[in-house]
């Protein structure tokens, strides 16, 4: 095993674990709120994955610096951050819709456990 290489790419490991935790939560948890939390964790994983493309060695904030000039390698890539800002907004909206639905479900069924709701729907 090439441990050095594995440790060097620690960010990918963290992201993979986050995404797996998220998908596990969405699929295996029987409580609807926990499913929603799994969904959010998955989204955070994807967002971090994009942000991984952003920094550069020795790069600074992507704001034009007079002393450096338009030197591409000197700045971090701002595009993934801009994209993920949009993705975060979308994620917030999705969470909002999902929470509103959970309120409606709880009012009707009095529980958020999927099994109990399915039992009542039979």
């Amino acid at each position, binding site marked *: 095993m090439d441990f050095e290489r594995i440790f060097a790419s620690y960010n990918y490991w963290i992201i993979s674990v986050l995404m797996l935790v998220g998908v596990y939560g969405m699929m295996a948890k029987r409580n609807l709120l926990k499913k*929603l939390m799994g*969904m959010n964790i998955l989204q955070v994983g*994807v967002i971090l994955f994009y942000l991984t493309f952003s920094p550069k060695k020795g790069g600074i904030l992507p704001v034009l610096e007079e002393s450096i000039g338009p030197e591409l390698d000197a700045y971090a890539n701002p595009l993934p951050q801009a994209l993920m800002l949009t*993705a975060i907004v979308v994620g917030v909206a*999705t969470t909002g819709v*999902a929470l509103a*639905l959970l309120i409606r479900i709880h009012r*009707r069924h009095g529980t958020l456990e999927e099994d109990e709701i399915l039992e009542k*729907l039979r």
Partner: protein
Amino acid sequence: MIQPAAPLWIIVALFVGALALPLVRRLSARAVLPTALLFSTLAVAASLRTAHLVFALTEAGEGALSHHLGGWPPPWGIELRVDNLSAVMVLLVNLLSWLVLLFSHRGLPERLKSRAHFFYSLYLLFTMGMSGFVMTGDLFNLYVFLEVIALTGYALVAVGDPEAPFAAFRYVIIGTLGAAFYLLGLAYLYGLTGSLNFVDVARQVALLEGPEAQRALLVALAFLVTGFGIKAALFPLHAWLPDAYAYSPNVTTALMGAVGIKMGAYGIFRVLYTLYRVGPAGDYSAVLDLMGWLSALAIIIGSLLAIAQTDLKRMLAYSSVSQIGYVLLGFSLANDDGLTGGVLHMINHAVMKCALFMVTGAIVTRLGHRDIRRFDGLGRHLPFTMAAFGVASLSMVGIPPTAGFFSKWYLVLGAVEGGRWPFVIIILASSLLNAIYFFRILERAFFKERVDPTPTEAWVSKIKPLPGTMLLPVGVATLAILILGLGSFPIVEHVIGPIVRPALGLILP
């Protein structure tokens, strides 16, 4: 270069309409639907203009119409890139959306009438999302529109029956998983190419070499196809669909069932044939094979589950699972006839399902239920509606000269050409299965007397003829099925040919 703004106007009209409706409601509740129809009509006009421009460009041998948003040229800015496929899809979305809007005048449940402005606002946003989704030339913009479709779609489902929020929540969870997979696949492509523009990414993907890049491309392809597969309800990722359709309001189902899941199919087409340019013997044939077999399973299992249903809407939902299988089966064949069949079926099935779900809505309005076992003698009371149902059913089964026959014909030709004999058998066998679940309804409606004697009098007097705003859209959709069928050869020649040939790299210039 002249940049016609017609594609942008489609999005602007629908978006402004969606924002205007709650304001209009403050002035007059009765003006809500006419206003929605007005903005929808504007969008239809703009899509007709767009389609006209695009078809003229195609005839002249140019590929696509491109509008640079904000004047930033691609690949830096976001572009709206409308080729033949986009033009056909945007036209389909807006025309069907307009029809269903007309239908909704009487088709909307009483419960929603007091808050109709919010419903129509979401409805227009849903249409806007789909219009933007099929026109954009930017991969991240595609994600944003995908989520606009999804978010409005969840809400439109949730306002249905009392059980609808639960179905909608499951749809949220699995739909977001699909969107996250798409975003993840896109991350790989962005990391590999540094670009988000369709044309630019496709050009760079073709240039990438070496085993590591190939592996990354394959992973990206798997995520992208799975993500869109969830949105398209490809078996076995279809679990959200039957509940979401069965509990949503009939107006929602008529639009979502018609074009909603086609968005996933459109996305898969774009990924396979615009970004990756897959061929039948290329590097990605394993992905195509897998998709082909899943589609074949979807066709059979969807049909069998449809036969098992007694609820008309749930039956149509499972039928959608089966029909999307035909579309993706066509895409997986990666040859001329197969793709033609897939794209043609995407159009035909949208019109057929729109007609069928509107008929379902009409039946529910009059009967108050959708239990197939209680449809005996319905043909005598709703002759026009059930005739429309008959035509749409024949088309679903694939009997000439209705539209459904021709798309299946091309699919069979494509399967033969690709040497996929199991698929040929599956397509033919599934027609029989379709016939079982549609003809049993026609038999009940037209050839059975009403046996239940007790409430006959009350029952018959209760059934009034349907209002014109319901019959007209149903009639138009039914007519469209016949026109699409009878005119299928010119459509294939002039509209679908220019989609399929460049997708397979067969274009001459």
